[in-house]
């Protein structure tokens, strides 16, 4: 059975290649990785207006990984579900524009940029995502109030992962 790290590695390699579908079978375990083409998804994205999400994996009870959708845009259904869980209000999610380490503050000794209940403006820095000593100061992009911090300090976040929920003003 492939390790999760190896699968990640595969996803990355395939993502960068022109391969659309990849199947791998070993000792009764099967892995199928299939890319969805951007054009197929375009309409969906426009109607749901959901930003990009990380690749998803659906694993059935036998442990077989049936499908790993690898694309810049995927997983709309689950995001819609998550937003619904938060109630009727239409919260805006601040997402990570790159893979990296999430920090709530500029240094371990500093106060967090924002906390639940804080009001933010479009250009308020809400966190840092770091990769290779590049500190990306993430701005809110929307005026409102922070209602939830979805990730923990020091956590590795994926491209498109939701970091904060903001109640727009």
């Amino acid at each position: 059975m492939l390790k999760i790290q190896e699968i990640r590695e595969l996803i990355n390699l395939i993502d960068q290649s022109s391969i659309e579908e990849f199947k791998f079978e070993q000792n009764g375990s099967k892995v199928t990785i299939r890319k969805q083409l951007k054009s197929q998804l375009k309409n969906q994205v426009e109607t749901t207006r959901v930003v990009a999400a990380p690749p998803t994996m659906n694993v059935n009870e036998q442990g077989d990984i049936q499908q790993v959708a690898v694309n810049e845009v995927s997983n709309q259904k689950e995001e819609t579900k998550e937003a619904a869980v938060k109630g009727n209000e239409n919260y805006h999610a601040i997402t990570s524009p790159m893979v990296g380490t999430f920090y709530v503050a500029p240094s371990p000794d500093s106060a967090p940029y924002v906390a639940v209940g804080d009001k933010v403006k479009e250009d308020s820095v809400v966190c840092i995502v770091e990769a290779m000593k590049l500190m990306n100061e993430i701005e809110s992009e929307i005026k409102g109030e922070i209602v939830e911090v979805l990730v923990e300090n020091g956590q590795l976040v994926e491209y498109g992962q939701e970091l904060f929920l903001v109640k727009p003003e």
Partner: protein
Amino acid sequence: MKGKVLQLLRDHSNEYISGEKISQALSISRTMVWKYIDALRKEGYDIIAVSNKGYLLKGEVDSLSEHGIQARLDERSIFRNVVYQPVLESTQQLAQQLLQEKEKNGQGTIVIANEQTGGRGRLGRDWHSPKNTGVWMSIILYPKLDIRQTPQLTLLTAVAVVRAIEKITELDVHIKWPNDILINKKKVAGILTELQADPDRVKSVIIGIGLNVNQTSFPEEIKDIATSIAIEGNKGYKRIDLIEAILFEFQWLYEVYLSKGFSFIKPLWEARTTTLGKRITATTPRDVITGVADRMDDDGVLLLKDDEGVIHRIYSADIKILHD
């Protein structure tokens, strides 16, 4: 008299001259000699004192100024706008402010200070930046890049700084992933980059470079891990020469990168790294992982293979090279 002391030191640039000799030659007291030496040091002359040997002028005054830096940049330079301040909290901080004043920071603005009172590294760590000793510089760029590519700029900057040091000195310079610059396993330069971006577009990048040039000693808490090129090269260097070389190397690498991509930069980085193939410990905010640094991928991510053969993708960590 101060000038005469300096002249004597200059005349003995390859050997130590004792305080006694200076005192006799100039008919002044030993205390006065010490006072003049101290005054020269305060002006920035790098004079080392060794007991039983005397004084040695290691580095001449190497004062930085806006026009002095401008004079080193030819008409092809992308660095059109030089901001120099004797003292700043940090060059990154001033660069951040300049971003708000659009008219003052065209493409390729550089901010340089003679001293930083609050120089900082990753995660708000202090970067010791005393006056007259180092290159404390920030570069402001507005690259048309995908946000996910921008970490590659930090690797490119490491290559530029290494090449610049190699150009000015004879020293062996190495890169520790992602962009620490080492000489004899001690850190001589650090690079910290700050990115301002919209969700889909890079607005600006500020690349901060701290290079230890003429320090002859370091505070107790970092003396085992930090060095300067003067300590390693056993002589003083002109910071302006290094600034010129860094900006020159950076520019051509950056232009090639924008037109040809990271595939051209990556082998230059790999040729100078001491991290790959070594057994290392990576301390991330969540984990401590020990294993072999297998390779760096095309995005600059370090692939670390632990003892079970599991590959970990390292995006940010403190790296310690073991059994080096």
